[in-house]
């Protein structure tokens, strides 16, 4: 049963398994463990970035494709749902129509990009994805009548997801079951299902072929696999899942805009998550996303406290001033890439394997 759920791909390290359980438990119970809206926002962001980074790992880690268009698909999902809710009506039909339209657009774009450029060298594919993604980002901010331009669009979500909605009058475990909480569980459950689905994909025979292509595409060809087709399917799958992640994020934020969904920073965040967590293993996305999102949200506060504690020492307190938090985030990245070249999961798994 468990093997079927995990598709036979277990963490293979006690520390990793424990970490994953802690993360799963925290995310599952996040609304009851905390009361702050900010913490719940962090938890939802982690859920979505796990899916986004894991789908990127399908490309980078499993197939060895470098793509810069992943945020574009994420943005398509967000804009699809956001604009549908904004222009049609705040109901589930609009969400549904938005998701379907976004998925179709993503599929078409991924297919076209894939068929045109996955046959050629990896660097050309990377360049083309970069060009298409930049064009899409410009388009989204320029078509301001439709997309809201740089400001983006805020919209109303279906009533059950609305913060004012109350499922019960009474509190459950000291928490009002409101629309925000229902949205959180929609995000959490969707993320979990998508993650398990990806685990199934990478451990299927199809996933093995992707890995074979990553390791040696000439050999994969000589074994009779049309690598261009497998690469294109992988690209499409990753794009579709990123689209769904974007749709979830926009439902959570009740907002869609280019800075949140299409900016290059989102892309670098995803890259960092995959590299720090560990390429070629979906669990890497879980660890990486949790670490990065926590660091982005709490490093600032942590440093404020440290700086206050060190206020007697002028030079050190300057160094730990909250305004320097990006510097420390950078230092953390450099150190983690230096000490864990195969990512945190790769490192944990290696120390777990008997020498």
């Amino acid at each position, binding site marked *: 049963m468990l093997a079927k759920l995990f598709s036979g791909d277990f963490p293979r390290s006690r520390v990793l398994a424990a970490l994953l359980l802690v993360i799963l438990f925290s995310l599952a119970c996040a609304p009851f463990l905390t009361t702050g809206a900010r913490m719940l926002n962090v938890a939802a962001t982690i859920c979505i970035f796990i899916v986004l980074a894991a789908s990127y790992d399908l490309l980078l880690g499993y197939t060895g494709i470098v793509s810069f268009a992943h945020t574009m698909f994420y943005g398509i999902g967000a804009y699809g749902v956001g604009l549908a809710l904004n222009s049609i009506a705040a109901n589930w039909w609009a969400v549904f129509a938005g998701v379907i339209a976004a998925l179709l657009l993503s599929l078409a774009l991924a297919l076209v990009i894939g068929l045109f450029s996955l046959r050629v060298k990896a660097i050309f594919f990377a360049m083309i994805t970069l060009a298409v993604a930049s064009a899409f980002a410009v388009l989204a901010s320029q078509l301001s009548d439709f997309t809201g331009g740089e400001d983006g669009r805020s919209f109303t979500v279906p009533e059950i997801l609305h913060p004012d909605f109350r499922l019960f009058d009474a509190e459950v475990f000291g928490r009002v079951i409101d629309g925000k909480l229902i949205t959180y569980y929609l995000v959490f459950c969707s993320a979990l299902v998508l993650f398990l689905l990806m685990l199934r994909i990478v451990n299927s025979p199809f996933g093995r072929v992707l890995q074979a292509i990553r*390791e040696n595409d000439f*050999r994969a060809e*000589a*074994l009779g696999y049309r690598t261009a087709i497998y690469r294109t399917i992988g690209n499409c799958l990753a794009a579709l899942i990123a689209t769904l992640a974007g749709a979830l994020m926009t439902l959570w934020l009740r907002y869609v805009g280019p800075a949140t969904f299409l900016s290059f920073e989102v892309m670098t965040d995803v890259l960092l998550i995959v590299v720090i967590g560990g390429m070629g293993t979906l669990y890497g996305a879980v660890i990486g996303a949790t670490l990065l999102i926590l660091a982005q949200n709490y490093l600032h506060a942590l440093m404020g406290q440290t700086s206050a504690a060190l206020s007697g020492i002028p030079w050190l307190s300057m160094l730990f001033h909250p305004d320097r938090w990006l510097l420390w985030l950078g230092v953390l990245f450099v150190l983690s890439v230096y000490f864990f070249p195969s990512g945190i999961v790769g490192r944990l798994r290696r120390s777990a394997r008997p020498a």
Partner: protein
Amino acid sequence: MSEALLTLKGVHTHIGQYHILQGIDLVVPKNGLMVLLGRNGAGKTTTLRTIMGLWHASQGTVNFAGRDITHSATPDISCAGIAYVPENMGIFADLTVRENLFLAARNVKKAGEMDTARLEWIFGFFPALRKFWGQPAGTLSGGQKQMLAIARAIVEPRKLLLVDEPTKGLAPAIVRSLIDAFLELKTTETTILLVEQNFNFVKSLGDSVAVIDDGRMVHTGTMAELSGDMDLQQKLLGLALEHQY
């Protein structure tokens, strides 16, 4: 000589600006083992890669089992029944031995459904594969990787097996087990085209032999003829072989 399985006619192959094969004519008869000999850089590997479609011939034709495959794509050539064991073996290091073999078993949908009788047959001459079944292939030794590379090519019956210098850098004991494996393979329906520099290794194995030099065929004949004629060996294979006797 029995009917031809693979025929190369006047094949020229260019790699970038280099004209590597300059009109190769080669007939690989059905069944049995043919050895392709030649100095370093003579064009042996390029011949195999041209057959496999990894390089395309600029002139001439490659005909396999009655089909023109000169311009076919590599996956099609593979599906037509040619398996290729390249010199660098090209195993998938991060995947396990089992997964490597499963990828090569194209007619099998699930890893659990691989032909166990055939696997047992392969384990018979490559027992190390059974031992390291669940291990990442990257952790195997050089000889074991070579065994895996060959096993991958024969996990399903193929019409033609192209093997590029399997003994390179291997210990004598492993070379002997490779000889046993090839002798066993010869009893099956598979035709083998073996590229080798180690004449001692192929002397006992080959049925027929072709010698290539500077991108051209300089000799074809039976192995018995070549191994019995020291002068011919001297002439074709040069001083490089001297110390091996």
